[in-house]
């Protein structure tokens, strides 16, 4: 289906898909960059955000409350998880960290399944963003358009926190060299807790703002987690701008490939990751030697 109208449509759609991937991936990458923990529960946190928001929406009928609850609840879960479990694994081998976060993810999914079942649940888009908008070259769901703006604001806030605040400076320093930060007398473990909470919140926020686009189900985090890892690898581990760039690239690859041959959309995503790994193993904006 290659024609000019479809190309523009798909390129635009890739931007929307990419924005979502960028937001989720930024949470994953700052956690890994700072703490060195590859959080396999990140997809489950994305899902938790959706369900927490869904519950809040059912009680209040307010989408804004749902978004706030979704993000804050997952941040709280992240902080508790870091204090109770993850901190004991900082000095453990990476495979232990993978196993424990994978185990936590299974628990989260099954707990949600126990209470809500496997049937998908829907959170409607706010009335102001419902319906379809004509962009001239195509019709596009209004909420998806709004989502680009919502995510752009969220990424901007995250950028300001990381690059314009003292805490952000410490976090970035921690990403580069946590041992040095510790030796400067900064309580690096408190920062770790905060970073984990912020990273989790990014996933939770993405989960609830994405809920009107895709119905929520207990295992919705699984497939998104895989894509998120691809984004982080492409963008560069630990790099916030890398996650944003990687997300947008991934979104465009999926969308534009599907225009040519939909069966190869995800194949091309992994092919792109492979190419990046071969040519630039630390990712597009990653730094060589960063752990």
């Amino acid at each position, binding site marked *: 289906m290659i024609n000019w109208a479809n190309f523009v449509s*798909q390129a635009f759609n890739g931007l929307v*898909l990419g924005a979502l991937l960028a937001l989720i991936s930024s949470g994953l990458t700052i956690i890994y960059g700072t703490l060195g923990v590859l959080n396999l529960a990140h997809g489950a946190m994305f899902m938790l955000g959706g369900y927490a928001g869904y519950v809040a929406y059912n009680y209040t009928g307010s989408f804004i409350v749902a978004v706030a609850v979704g993000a804050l609840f997952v941040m709280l879960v992240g902080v508790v998880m870091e204090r109770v479990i993850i901190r004991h694994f900082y000095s453990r081998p990476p495979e232990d960290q993978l196993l424990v976060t994978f185990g936590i993810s299974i628990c989260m999914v099954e707990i949600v399944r126990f209470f809500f079942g496997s049937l998908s649940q829907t959170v409607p888009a706010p009335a102001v963003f419902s319906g379809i908008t004509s962009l001239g070259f195509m019709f596009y769901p209004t909420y998806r358009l709004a989502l680009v703006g919502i995510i752009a604001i969220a990424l901007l806030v995250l950028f300001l926190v990381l690059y314009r605040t003292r805490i952000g400076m410490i976090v970035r320093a921690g990403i580069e060299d946590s041992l040095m930060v510790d030796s400067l007398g900064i309580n690096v473990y408190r920062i770790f807790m905060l970073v984990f909470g912020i990273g989790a919140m990014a996933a939770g926020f993405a989960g609830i703002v994405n809920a009107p686009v*895709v*119905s929520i189900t207990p295992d919705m985090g699984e497939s998104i987690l895989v894509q998120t890892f691809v984004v982080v690898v492409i963008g560069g581990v630990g790099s916030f701008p890398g996650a944003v760039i990687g997300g947008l690239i991934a979104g465009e690859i*999926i*969308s534009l490939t599907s225009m040519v041959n939909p069966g190869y959309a995800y194949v091309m995503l992994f092919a792109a990751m492979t190419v990046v790994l071969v040519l630039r193993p630390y990712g597009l904006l990653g730094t060589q030697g960063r752990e």
Partner: protein
Amino acid sequence: MTDRKSSISSSLSRRALLRSAAVTGAGIGAMSISSISGFEFVSRVAAAENPPIGTWPEGSKGSTIYVSISVPRTGAYAVQGEDELKGWELAIEHINEGHELLRKISPKTKKGVLGKQIKAVVTDSGAKPNQAVQAHQRAITENKAVMLTGSTSSAVAVAANKLAQREHVLYLAGISGSNDTTGKDCVRYGFRQNFYGETAANAIGPVLVKQFGKNKKMAFMTPDYTYGHTVTKSVNDYLTKNAGWTQVTNQVSPLGAPDFSSYLLNIANSGAEVLINVNWGRDAVLSIQQAQKFGILDKMKLVVPYQIPFLAREVGNGLLAGVYAATDYWWTLEDKYPLAKMFNEAFVKKYGYHPEWGAENAYISFAHWARMVEEAGTFYPPAVIKTYEKGETIPSLVGDVKYRPEDHQCVRPVFIVKGKAPKEMKNKEDFWEVVETIPGEGLMQKPDAFGCKLGDYT
């Protein structure tokens, strides 16, 4: 004289002795036969005649037999998997207690199968072939399972078919819509009760032509595995050959895709008049909901050729009003079929909702298996297979059916349903109206048309 007498006497006594010995022997034999069950007698005869095969006779020696059920309880097909599981659980309960409904399908059933209680080994396949095969293999090794079942994906059914043939343990397909399951990937040890791509296409095709006319442009959404490809091909072939429809795009997506927007944009730009969505499970729910958000359902008619349990209630908002689908079963068929009514009542009583077609397929395929084993009088797999292969007409929840000996596919009716608008629904589960019942015979391809070669018995 004395010698002669003595000789006669001794000869008489020898004759008497032989006679009495024969009578006594026969008596003891008769006593020993009457003291064992008919099943054990047939089993001993079978065991004497046949070497062990698969899990036979080990798996059926005790008072309990195990069946392996590997069904998706997670992933994109989890909702449908749970419904299937309920169907199997109810069937096991009915077989074990000799329920009235079960005895209408398997008249020789008393309690259990050949007097043995069934226990299920239930595992989560996640709709992944390797996961399902590993689970079945474990049940064969550890529990000596006498029968395998479960699939909500034809990729799983095809893999389980191959395992069943290799291990010589019967496999009853769960939900499996691919032509290949009883086509090129058929096996001697595999049986399928439910409808599939070719029968769905031949059943719904005439309805679509009647409703929408000839020479239409159609777009397909196809999940990227055997089910999707074969169903799309069958539906496409029917509509292009018989009504001059043209396929303008086929959007192939991986199972469990998180977002369908890029596929839907291609469809929106394709100029199609009819959208034929072959996606299944959560993929179908998501793709239909998203199609509505892209305004596609306002521009083109939606068709679901292979109906999905819970689709209407999950999609919501009356999006399926007026949508045609082919299906194995819908609960309102109880008005026409007494056994369906009995099944619905038992199911609703136990689970609190009306069964979807996954549960119906699960229940009836177990009931048919119980019947075949009872008829064979043994669990010896080749004997059970040959009983299926007699091709006798047997009852089902939707009238009489039979299994084709050439490919082990059940010849059964396919139903065309049409989605109801919310205002037409008489109760909260009244999502579909059954508009046509099409007998199975005329819907099926010739047994060898899809390359079925069943393989050996032993």
